């Protein structure tokens, strides 16, 4: 084992690449849950974004339209969740899971219908890179302070948090609880859709069924790990990314004369998380009205 395998420049670059999609989902989760709606359909929004992004970019030959379409697709899926969770006050976990299954089924089906067994075309336009990283990596990082400023430095952010902590009190001072919650859930879908665009347009340059592989869920874990704050989410996403980067860079490493088994390395991101949550994070408290449907009095 060498130092380069643990903190080399290439490991750090890989950490950023691997953290970006998790971070985007996590920021979406922070916004949605701060407003009181648990959106586990982030995984689905990401997958739909990945698929629609590649189709739009390939059809129009425009990377801008591809990314925009991915954001819209992720937002639309989140819109269904918003209607179920806010308007119908259904169980948010059930609705979110149903949408994740829908997203997986629909994208796999349409992928097969559109591209058959040959897969997406090889000539999808490229996303620009800055300092050897996809521009979307930098966008995801820039969104951390922006989200933080929005939540803790603006009136809208204060209202959003009020709705997530005590919706009835918010209502009494004239805040439209449902309107704020709709906006928050739609924003979370947009961010997850952007994460999907990053995966399909920047990382893979293609779409394969189920390619998000649980990143939306890991993003939600990062929300909790990061104590429902954008900066916490960044730290959590970087830790997951670093764990994943290590599971690649440590392959072939030996301790004494024994090789580290690759299967064990695959568990690294999750081990790191459990250690961090158990040892360092301490007690974390969700917004008081997180996941609780809001009913106006007299209904």
């Amino acid at each position: 084992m060498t130092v380069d395998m643990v903190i080399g420049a290439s490991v750090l670059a890989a950490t950023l690449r691997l953290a970006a999609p998790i971070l985007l989902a996590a920021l979406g989760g922070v916004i949605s849950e701060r407003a009181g709606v648990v959106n586990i359909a982030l995984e689905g929004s990401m997958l739909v974004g990945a698929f629609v992004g590649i189709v739009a970019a390939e059809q129009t030959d425009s990377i801008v339209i591809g990314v925009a379409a991915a954001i819209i697709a992720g937002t639309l899926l989140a819109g269904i969740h918003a209607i179920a969770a806010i308007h119908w006050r259904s169980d948010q976990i059930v609705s979110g899971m149903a949408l994740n299954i829908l997203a997986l089924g629909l994208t796999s089906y349409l992928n097969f219908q559109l591209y058959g067994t040959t897969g997406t075309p090889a000539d999808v336009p490229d996303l620009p890179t800055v300092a050897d990283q996809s521009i979307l990596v930098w966008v995801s990082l820039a969104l951390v302070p922006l989200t933080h400023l929005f939540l803790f430095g603006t009136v809208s952010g204060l209202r959003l948090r009020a709705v997530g902590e005590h919706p009835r009190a918010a209502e009494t001072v004239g805040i439209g609880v449902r309107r704020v919650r709709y906006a928050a859930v739609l924003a979370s879908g947009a961010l997850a859709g952007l994460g999907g665009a990053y995966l399909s347009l920047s990382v893979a340059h293609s779409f394969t069924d189920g390619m998000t592989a649980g990143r939306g869920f890991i993003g939600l874990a990062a929300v909790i790990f990061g104590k429902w704050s954008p900066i916490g989410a960044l730290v959590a996403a970087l830790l997951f990314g670093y764990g994943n980067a290590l599971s690649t860079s440590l392959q072939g490493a030996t301790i004494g004369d024994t090789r580290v088994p690759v299967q064990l390395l695959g568990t690294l991101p999750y081990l790191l998380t459990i250690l961090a949550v158990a040892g360092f994070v301490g007690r974390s408290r969700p917004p008081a009205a997180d996941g609780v449907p809001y009913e106006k009095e007299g209904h």
Partner: protein
Amino acid sequence: MKRLLALPILAALIVSACGGTGSGGAQATGGAGTAPAAKAVRIGLVTDVGGLNDKSFNTLANLGRQDAEKDLKVETKVTESKQQADYVPNLTSYAQQGYDLVISVGFLMTNSTWKVAKQFPNVKFAIVDGAPADDAGKTENLPNVANLFFAQQEAGYLVGVIAAEMAKAKVGKATNNTVCSMGGIPIPPVDTFIAGYQHALQTISPTTKILNGYSNDFVDQQKGKEVGLRHIDQGCDILFQVAGGSGLGYIQAAKEKGKYAIGVDADQADVAPGVVITSALKRVNKAVYDSIKAVKENTFKSGDTFFNAANEGIGLGKLDPVVPASAKAAADKALADIKSGAIKPKTDIAVK
């Protein structure tokens, strides 16, 4: 009241989602009302979780089924498994309907096939890449199950010859004399490919540096790409993937960094033209076709059947124009030597 509406609508969404993929546009069946006297042979194919458009394994199995339906006038159907828990019900469904042959695609189904085949001794089964295994994982040959195995190491050896020749002669972008491979997870059907590949490299070009890694996944493209970028950092300029969907990320890394890649199972030249120099073909379609033919002609044989270079079960894919004629000649000679038994590619990985 409004809350009550939400559940049925969500249920409808779930049903439409499952229905949408379950039929997958790939259902195919012949006439249902055939007379009992001239009963058509009926074949059912069950994919593993990779699904029909995995561009390798399941896609090829389905191709074999479609070819058989066309040529042999048999009735066939395919069911996609969405999760491992679907294997037993999917296999049972065909067996219960009295299908003549039920085909399981993939070593992940060895135990499910064992269970269902024991329960339906009068139905014939074929399993790709494995043999029936009991609940303890112990292999048991059954009189109604054909085990279809592939000599992956022979396909690995052939692409290894191409890679070795190119690394040795520093052809095109292959200037670092370093050649790599990546598997999905270290299991025999994956590792035997890599073992043959490394055997060819060490035989033909002993000075070439060899690296191997795993993505620990068969779906996640980003994990595969990260292993690829790491390998390229370490000097690799020819990258061979044996990792399904995850391997497409490995190929993408080669494409982005201007290196060469080698595909697996199906001919993957179209995945990245000019990057994929050739593919290690594993003709699952032939194995499926041959088993259907055997049932149709009453020559079904239970136990192990091997598909290898000698019976065209494995082979070398299309060669990119960058591959020199001398490398092609060396691969052709290796193929002849494998067929004659003069070369026996190894099945154990040398560089892990």
